[in-house]
């Protein structure tokens, strides 16, 4: 199976590509090559760092190509900032709109005595049915590193608690997102990525 991984210069793709290939996928990188999105069978949008980096998706014409692919029913997975981009936007970069597939805006963790960023292994509380999280048991641990997070809505399929509950995973139809890094989350992460590769259009 083929996966198009989108490179918009927001961090290192090596880990994501390596993990997808380990699972038997043919991973190809689109750094602005629209044909690879138009012909995509599956799309992964990774990303670490700042929400402002998603501006490159707009300027390179990727946003409209992704919107068309989603409308075509192509399974889509956003990871970390790639998940946050699926909401309407983020207070991290107020002028930069997200895709708006999911309702609400990403916000920074509230100030508290806890450290920000949230870094390390934390557990998943499951809610609603999810094709992406099939076979994941309540309380399984995954690896996070982030300071901003998505709101809990009806599309949230897993929450995690740090300072406050936030959306660890979202899913509606063929569009999915995870705040954590499945490529760094041991066997649980591999199970989730395998699920993504097996979801049919």
């Amino acid at each position, binding site marked *: 199976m083929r996966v198009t991984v989108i490179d918009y210069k927001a961090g290192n793709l090596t880990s994501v590509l390596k993990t997808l290939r380990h699972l038997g996928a043919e991973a190809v990188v689109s750094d602005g090559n629209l044909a690879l999105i138009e012909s995509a069978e599956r799309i992964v949008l990774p990303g670490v760092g700042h929400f402002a980096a998603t501006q490159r998706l707009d300027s390179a014409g990727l946003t409209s190509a992704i919107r068309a692919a989603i409308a075509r029913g192509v399974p889509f997975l956003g990871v970390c900032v790639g998940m946050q981009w699926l909401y309407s936007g983020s207070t991290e970069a107020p002028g930069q709109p997200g895709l708006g597939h999911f309702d609400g805006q990403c916000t920074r963790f509230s100030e508290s005595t806890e450290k920000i960023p949230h*870094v390390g292994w934390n557990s998943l509380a499951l809610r609603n049915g999810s094709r992406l999280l099939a076979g994941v048991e309540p309380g399984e641990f995954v690896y996070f590193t982030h300071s901003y997070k998505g709101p809990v809505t009806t599309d949230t399929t897993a929450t995690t608690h740090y300072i406050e509950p936030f959306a660890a995973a979202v899913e509606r139809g063929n569009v999915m997102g995870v705040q954590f890094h499945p490529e*760094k989350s041991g066997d649980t992460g591999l199970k989730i990525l395998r699920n993504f590769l097996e979801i049919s259009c």
Partner: protein
Amino acid sequence: MLTKRIIACLDVHAGRVVKGVQFVDLVDAGDPATQAARHAREGADEIVLLDITATHEGRQTLLDTVRRTARELFVPFTVGGGIRTARDAEQVFEAGADKISVNSAALADPMLISAIGRSFGAQAVVVAIDARRDPAAADPVRDAEVFVQGGRKPTGRRAVEWAHEAEQRGAGEILLTSMDADGTRAGFDCELTAAVSEAVSIPVIASGGAGTVGHFADVFARGKADAALAASIFHFGVSSARLLKEELAAAGVPVRLPC
């Protein structure tokens, strides 16, 4: 609940894991890729590989080692040792590291921290600090001094201040080694770790001095550490990260279990 991380550390010389004291009497302890995979399988939350070769010819060997180690590793993987420029860091990331750790080079050129962070994200930049208490100072802990070159050269910098500056410049984590505690197996320097951890908002990884499970529990509670580096405990004491974490869980420390 966010758990405390147990990070397995591998010292690597010329492509092999080595055990030794102060870089002398090195004993071959196996292949880095095999050892890293074993630690991950046995419950380590993260792997750190420190290259102690630090020669120019050694860089290609290191990159090959990183590539082989990263291939089958699906937990966070940090590589340190001999990273002097943003280009060095880029090569290590391309070989498969998730984070790099910088020490002397960041002190010599603090802009290196932001330069690497700009391209790869702050979460990918670990600043390693080797510090020693200053017994002559009014506050030996808060005035603990930073050393470089394997602890041989004093810098005149205060560890607490340098950690704070590193955070301001975009470091994602601090790896703090107490030179007083290192090698003693008498426990971490909890006071120093707490002083640094309270001075920053980013995670602090404690290193140096672990000899028992109780030492880990102590550095998480009193030392306010977010993670702890485990090396010699796996040689001398507890045989795996899983056993260490099971004992920590029994002592009330939140850890990733089952793992």
